[in-house]
């Protein structure tokens, strides 16, 4: 009963939030709705006995990614409304058909995948975080380290892309300035 109520509540909230995100004219409303939707999605993860992913979802998505978007939006004019100048019947029909086909495929997927074998079984006497760590550092060690390298590359590229005047050091310039003033 409790699970039923929680599931339908989180489903309605998530769908509503993401609808606001997609259809809102204002970029700030859209970003706030996206942050709310991310937190409600972590509710699904807690319902599905994936506590570690729920916590990671809250920390990474609403902590890191949304903060990054918020800082990134300071570069843009986010106060005025988003101008979008097109009305196309064809686009609407294509979208409707694509979404319908997609839902059918997603719902039919478990029928095709019903005879798949388990790769990493859930062990009963261990907690979620512990069994996830065991699986990650044995079966998925290379993928884990590659994702770490990928995050490092993304961080360096983010710094290099946005910052200006990387060739002259700020601390050295400060030292020169202070020595001149003395």
């Amino acid at each position: 009963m409790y699970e039923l109520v929680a599931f339908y509540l989180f489903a309605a909230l998530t769908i509503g939030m993401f609808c606001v995100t997609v259809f809102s004219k204002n970029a700030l409303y859209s970003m706030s709705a996206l942050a709310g939707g991310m937190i409600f999605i972590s509710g699904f993860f807690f319902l599905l006995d994936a506590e570690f992913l729920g916590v990671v979802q809250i920390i990474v998505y609403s902590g890191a990614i949304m903060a990054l978007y918020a800082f990134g939006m300071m570069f843009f004019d986010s106060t005025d409304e988003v101008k979008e100048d097109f009305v196309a019947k064809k686009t609407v029909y294509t979208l409707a058909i694509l979404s319908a086909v997609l839902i059918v495929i997603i719902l039919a997927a478990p029928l095709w995948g019903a005879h798949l074998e388990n790769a990493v079984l859930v062990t009963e006497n261990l907690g979620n975080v512990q069994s996830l760590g065991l699986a990650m550092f044995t079966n998925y060690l290379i993928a884990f380290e590659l994702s770490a390298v990928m995050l490092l590359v993304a961080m360096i590229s983010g710094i290099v892309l946005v910052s200006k005047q990387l060739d002259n050091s700020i601390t050295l310039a400060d030292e020169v300035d202070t020595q001149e003033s003395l």
Partner: protein
Amino acid sequence: MIGFTHYLIVAGILFSIGLVGILKRKNLLMLFFSTEILLNATNIGFVAASKYYGDLTGQLAAFFIIAVAASEVAVGLGLLVLWYKRTGSINLDSLQIMRG
């Protein structure tokens, strides 16, 4: 009771919302938001499959998807800021500089 199908229906609806956003909006920031919605919808599907098949691989896949999403945002937002500084617009149509 809530079954696997319920979670898949929610994931499908969220994925459709994200797809509509990606195809409909012309603001590049909105395209980034829509990709986040797509990634989250697939995450719900993965974690639900992980629970109802008793298999931890789904949760691991969702974990790596979160890592990919974080790095995608860092690189994409950096490029977007650079593009805005250069052209003063984050409209998708401003990217059409190669006219055939």
